[in-house]
């Protein structure tokens, strides 16, 4: 299961999600989107605990967060 679904096309590369994540899961990529912004990317998916702190600080609703729950 993917914990983070990142709508790269909406990302403005502001870095607030990167700062909000205390686990070093996110980083700004060298890739740019159609708006010309460097996009955020998940560089350490295994460290993600689905706390959604990154998404809470994102001004552009770029990140959707999923969590694995017991059925």
């Amino acid at each position, binding site marked *: 299961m993917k914990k983070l679904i990142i709508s790269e096309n909406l990302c403005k590369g502001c870095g607030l999600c990167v700062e909000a994540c205390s686990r070093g899961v996110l980083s700004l990529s060298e890739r740019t989107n159609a708006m010309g912004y460097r996009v955020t990317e998940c560089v350490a998916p295994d460290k993600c605990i689905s706390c959604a702190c990154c998404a809470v600080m994102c001004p552009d609703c770029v990140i959707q967060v999923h969590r*694995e729950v*017991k059925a």
Partner: protein
Amino acid sequence: MDKIVFRKPPLLTDAPMHYCPGCTHGIVHRLIAEALDELGEFENVIGVAPVGCAVFAYNYFKCDMFQAAHGRAPAVATGIKRARPDSTVFVYQGDGDLASIGMAEIVHAAARGENMTVVFINNGIYGMTGGQMAPTTLEGQKTTTSQSGRSAKEHGNPIKVCEMLSALTGPAYIARVSVHDVKAVKTARAALVRGFAMQKAERGFSLIEILSTCPTNFGMTPQQALCWVRDHGTAAYPLGVYKDIGLPGEGRE
């Protein structure tokens, strides 16, 4: 099993926002949408956008929106709410819009106790027009029109909107919050929920001041701007609830 713990709230459209990277207008738009969603308000919501960077807010909310002349949003909202008392009306205003050209409208709407919810974005600057001094600019803060820093003697003292309006009889709920980190954002969301709950319960006027950033005109990175608000913004503008007459059932009527 896969559970979605965070998604864009349904009241926001899919339109990409025009705000600068890291501008907190986007966070606050989302919080308004989340607060309305939490209260089950969707069909009957009418928002009033200001003049300022949020002038295009009507593109981002799925509810009905009106765009008022500079500073006049509370007057327009008064008409909307009185004509459609069953609707949930929110007003969105920057500090140039609300505390400068629109000071008369906000004071009188608050004094009348109009049953509406005002979201007041205090970023201490005129964003849209290029970073001029606002009534809320901090002492010592440099802007394009206070280049050696705002001085109380030359430019007047910063205006504390919550403190001022909470002295009036009309308002039901007045609070100042911030969005400088995750915890602050969650508190801000709760304040918006309470503001809208006041309106639903017909308790009267509510205003939530949100300390915000304008990274572009602060000349800072988005994160530096948030730290600046945390360290300097909240020192000049203390966070907290300035007035709360209580909701029905809370034993305060």
